């Protein structure tokens, strides 16, 4: 049974769609990670689920309830932490818990003190919350969310402001609640590595739309290792790749970079393949698949299968023949005189040239660097992301 379900949920602010037909399903007892850039619509989705914002369209189901009264009844079983910690600043930590517990109807001082210990706070501390550090406030907000032993927890950026030890403790707490008490948890976080350690399902939101909903097993498949190649001439390199790889076996990354997922061709083979086509290879190395790069690619990187339109645009811009997709390879083998496998196994210069409409320019490393700089100027954010990804993934 689904603990939380939304179908075609939409929310408009001033005519602008912040959520557009979002349908997610969170099964009972799972940890669901909500991933997306800033402003993607994660918090709005959470706010709609919690009744803080009225959806412009669509339906919300919590434990099967859909009517407003029934939803409000089910929301009593939800603990939440949204945006900044909701705390009364002039009260002490324990008093904040008392005030919330009184309102929720779960006033038990011993239990509240236990909760404070659980999140790593001292209940005897009489200091006003305004003097707490951000991490302490975050812990206290989590403790408030846990009042009344909720069956569902919704946490928006729960580890914001926490030190590494705090992050570890929150992670442990989430895992313990999920494993031992079977609490269903929805977490939105930017710390993808952290999310990857606790979540077993993911929803990826971009521009108010649900890009993809994945289970852990799907993600493992997407997180496969790849060979990253930085080339001097993307256009020629693409021609080579199109001839040798299926559409789903490579990806175009920013800055003249290609990710090749078919590891049957090792690094020397790939290097040789590009060398034959006179493509300058600036850098080539193997990367282990990780959550971060997978999510980035799903959220708007030029993804393998989910952002086909963007990729097609690159092909059109560079005037390169579009690659074959695995699902229509059968059909294409009928049209093409040469079988695809044969093409892949026998890359040749002639083969490459056959599909290149313009003469191949001999690009020097200088030109490649210039291209990199130009792209970095156009999109500094991606440049940073790419730098981070490179820093974290380099194996060689």
């Amino acid at each position, binding site marked *: 049974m689904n603990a939380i379900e939304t179908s075609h949920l939409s929310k408009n602010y001033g005519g602008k769609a912040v959520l557009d037909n979002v349908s997610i399903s969170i099964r009972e007892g799972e940890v669901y990670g909500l991933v997306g850039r800033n402003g993607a619509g994660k918090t709005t989705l959470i706010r709609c689920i919690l009744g803080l914002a*009225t959806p412009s369209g669509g339906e919300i189901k919590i434990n099967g309830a859909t009517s407003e009264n029934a939803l*409000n009844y089910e929301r009593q079983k939800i603990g*939440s932490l*949204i945006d900044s910690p*909701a705390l009364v600043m002039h009260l002490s930590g324990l008093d904040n818990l008392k*005030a919330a517990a009184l*309102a*929720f*109807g779960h*006033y038990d001082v011993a239990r509240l003190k236990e909760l404070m210990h659980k999140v790593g706070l001292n209940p005897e501390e009489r200091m006003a919350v305004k003097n707490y550090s951000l991490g302490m406030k975050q812990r206290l907000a989590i403790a408030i969310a846990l009042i009344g032993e909720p069956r569902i927890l919704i946490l928006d950026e729960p580890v914001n402001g926490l030190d590494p030890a705090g992050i570890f403790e929150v992670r442990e707490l989430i895992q313990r609640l999920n494993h031992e008490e079977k609490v269903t948890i929805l977490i939105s976080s930017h710390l993808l590595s952290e999310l990857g350690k606790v979540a077993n399902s993911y929803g990826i939101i971009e521009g108010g739309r649900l890009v993809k909903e994945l289970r852990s097993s799907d993600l493992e498949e997407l997180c496969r290792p790849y060979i990253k190649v930085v080339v001097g001439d993307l256009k020629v390199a693409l021609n080579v790749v199109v001839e040798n790889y299926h559409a789903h076996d490579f990806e175009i990354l920013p800055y003249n970079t290609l990710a090749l997922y078919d590891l049957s061709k090792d690094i020397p083979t790939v290097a040789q393949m590009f060398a034959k086509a006179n493509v300058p290879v600036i850098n080539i190395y193997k990367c282990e698949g990780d959550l971060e790069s997978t999510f980035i690619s799903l959220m708007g990187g030029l993804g393998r299968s989910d952002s086909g339109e963007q990729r097609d645009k690159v092909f059109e811009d560079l005037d390169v023949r579009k690659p074959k997709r695995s699902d229509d390879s059968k059909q294409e083998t009928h049209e093409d005189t040469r079988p695809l496998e044969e093409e892949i196994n026998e890359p040749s210069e002639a083969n490459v040239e056959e599909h290149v409409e313009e003469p191949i320019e001999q690009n020097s490393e200088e030109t490649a660097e210039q291209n990199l700089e130009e792209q970095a100027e156009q999109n500094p954010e991606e440049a940073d992301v790419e730098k981070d990804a490179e820093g974290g993934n380099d194996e060689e």
Partner: protein
Amino acid sequence: MKNNSMTNLLSSDFFKLRKLKSVWIGLVIMVVLTFLVYAIFWIGLNVAEHIEVTEGVSTQAPSGEAIVDAPNVGEVSEQTPSEEEGISQADKDGIILSMRMLGNQLLTGFTGICGSELLIAIICCIFIGGEFANGSFRILISRGMNRVQLYFSKWITMATLVLAYSVFSLIVSGIFAAVKGYYPSFGGHEFGILMRAFGLQFLCNLATMTIVMMLCFLCRSSGSSLGATIGVYILFPIIFGSIETVMGVMMGKNVDWISFLPMQQSSIAQLATPLSTTEICAVVIMPIVYIALSMFVGLYTFIKRDVK
């Protein structure tokens, strides 16, 4: 304990209100202000009681009619007798009587002298605006709390504060008034007038609090609602005072209707004298009308708007 009951919300609100420093600071301010007003009154009364009386001068009756006692009437015509020749015993008695009546008025106008109306408005902004700012409303609504119950919980909490402040200011004012005593004496009739003043001032303060609460629910932060409230406190007297001056004094028109406008009833409620029918209507009906109106607007916006 049952989840989401009004009792739970009220317990939580009273707990938070009890812990709000402004509530206790407000009480101290009320005592200090009442003391200051009474201190000025005592000094004034003391001065009046010790005015030296000049024998054989013209006097002025307490009613205001000049009683000419001078040997030469023609000499007095250009200047008032007291300015020229000092204060007679009758003048002195008149001044003391006026001061005594003012003392009675101080007792019945207990909320006015300690500024409890403004203090309640400020606390209301801090308490309710703060609930929006610190995300308390967010947490409660996300736990399935009914917004109508939330609104009424806040209103009842603040209404209790209005009642507590009214009773406190009455007690403080009563204690200070007892120092010099009620003039001529405090009996059942005077007690009735005092209770009438208490009831009407409570009603007026309740109306003001509801209007301020509506502003808080519209502004949704303590800072902006405080600004809006102070703005209202400054603007309303200027606007209504100007209307009164232009229409009443300059054009000679009847401006009794001004007492029907928002937050204009307190001065009538504080009177120790019998009230006219118009005044009774203004001070009884209008606060109820304003309570109902502002409650509707505040509640409607709270239900309809998303909570940040």
